[in-house]
Structure formats: C-alpha cells, structure tokens
C-alpha cells in the first residue's frame, strides 16, 4: 500500500529514490465509484452482509438493468466482488460482497490528511 498517489505528487524528490510504486488501489477510481449516492447505498448495504443483485435492486428501488449498471461500476472499480455463485433450480445467483483493499487505501489517504 505505502504512500498514496496524492502524497507522492507532493513529495517528488522522495519518490526518486524508489523504482517501484507500492501497490496502490487507484484512489481516483475509488472516489469516482463512491461519488454516486446509489452506489454508496449499495456499499452500505453490503457492509451489513453480502447480498444478491435482486435484493440490492429492491433496496434501492431500482430495476434490474439500472442496478446492474451500478454494480458493474463497483465491480470494475474493485470495490465489490462476487462472493460465490449459488444455484437455485438452475438459476445462477451471484452474491456480491465488498473488497477491503479500496477502503483501506481510502482510510490511509484520509489518515495522511490528519497527520500531525
């Protein structure tokens, strides 16, 4: 994880000493994904427990295709993943859950803001 992109831009001289950029979840991508209130609601729902797309759609009062667009953004951005695919009478049910890495990165970036 290491220093995050925003901090690196403020410390170019320090950065010259190192060849490798510590693996960083892209902060821009994470913030863009969280910029939408529906997606934040989905994240809050998944924080309680993993859920299927249908349940998320109902909780957000949205159609399947509409919630799928948001889930795709969250998935591509790395904030959620498919926990497992269950089968119920031949129907494939995808259960979504949060991934910790983007949230830990975001927390670390915010910690830098509060650093003494």
């Amino acid at each position, binding site marked *: 994880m*290491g*220093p995050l992109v925003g901090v690196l831009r403020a410390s170019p001289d320090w950065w010259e000493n190192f*060849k*490798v950029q510590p693996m960083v979840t892209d902060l821009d991508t994470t913030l863009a994904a969280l910029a939408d209130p529906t997606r934040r609601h989905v994240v809050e729902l998944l924080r309680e427990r993993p859920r299927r797309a249908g349940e998320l759609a109902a909780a957000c009062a949205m159609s399947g295709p509409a919630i799928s667009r948001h889930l795709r953004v969250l998935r591509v951005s790395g904030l959620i993943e498919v926990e497992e695919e269950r089968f119920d009478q031949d129907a494939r049910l995808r259960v979504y859950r949060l991934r910790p890495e983007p949230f830990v990165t975001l927390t*670390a970036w915010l910690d830098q803001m509060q650093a003494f």
Partner: protein
Amino acid sequence: MRPTDVVTATVEVAVNPATAFAIFTEEIGRWWRPGPINWNDSRRAVGMRFEPGVGGRWIEVHDEATGGGFECGRILVWEPGARLVFLYRDAGHEIDDTEVEVRFEAIDGGTRVTLEHRGWDKVLLDIAARKREIKRWGWVNILGWFSEWAFWGSPRRIQGSAAASEHY
C-alpha cells in the same frame, strides 16, 4: 474446503525480501498500530514482538520488563527473506491453531508480501464464516500498516531498498 475459505492479503513494498522480512518481524513493535480495537487485551497491551526462529512466539506484550503477554502465534516456519508460518490464535480462542503463512517474493523494485490465513476447518462451522470475514478485512488493514512503516518510517527503508541492493 473451498478456496474461498482461505483469507488472503497482499501488499508490495519497495525493499528487498530480506529487509521486508526483517521489518515485518523485528520491527513489529514499531509498525503495529496501537488503538483500542487492535489488541487482544487493550488495557494491558504495550506492543508486539516476535521471538525469532521455529518454536518462537508472536507475543502481544503486556509486561514491558519481561516481554511477556498474550501469545498470538507459534512459529512453524522461519525462513528469513522467504517465508514465515505460524499457528495463530486470539483472545476469543475460537480460531486457535488456524495457520498464517506470510510469503516474501522478490519483484521488480521490491517485494510482494502475501499473507494467507487458513485452517478454518478447525473452527466451529457456525462462527467460521464470520471470523473469516473479520480477518479478511483485518489482515488487509494490518499489511497496510506494515507497508506504510516500510515506506515512511523504518530505519531499514533506505539501505534495504531494492535499488540500493543493486549497488552493493
């Protein structure tokens, strides 16, 4: 046991594997973040330390003078710069003797540190999923502390850098 029953966390640091291993083990007292939820016994905890070598322990220190405290881990494999494996436990004693492996692999410009927490078949079925989820977030957070110390704080961070090792 399904592959999903193994909890993993990965981080990359800009020091060579031997240095990453040394920072992880010898400097755990510096990089482990204090805070009320980060200890087994927050009223008594003063730090963390590793006793090196197979059979050594990872201890949450409660007595600064003796170094004694709560045993978090018992080392099974101690391969500096490569691999660390220990039996893991916490104060709840619900996941005793699950196993943690930490691998240190050289990558271009540094080290990839991969942690794997497994052995969940030993844990009672009705609590295993919940404990795994806690650890899934916990280890990512903890490796984050380690990587930030390795980058910003550790006295080993310059001389142990992968770039430096090419010159010496």
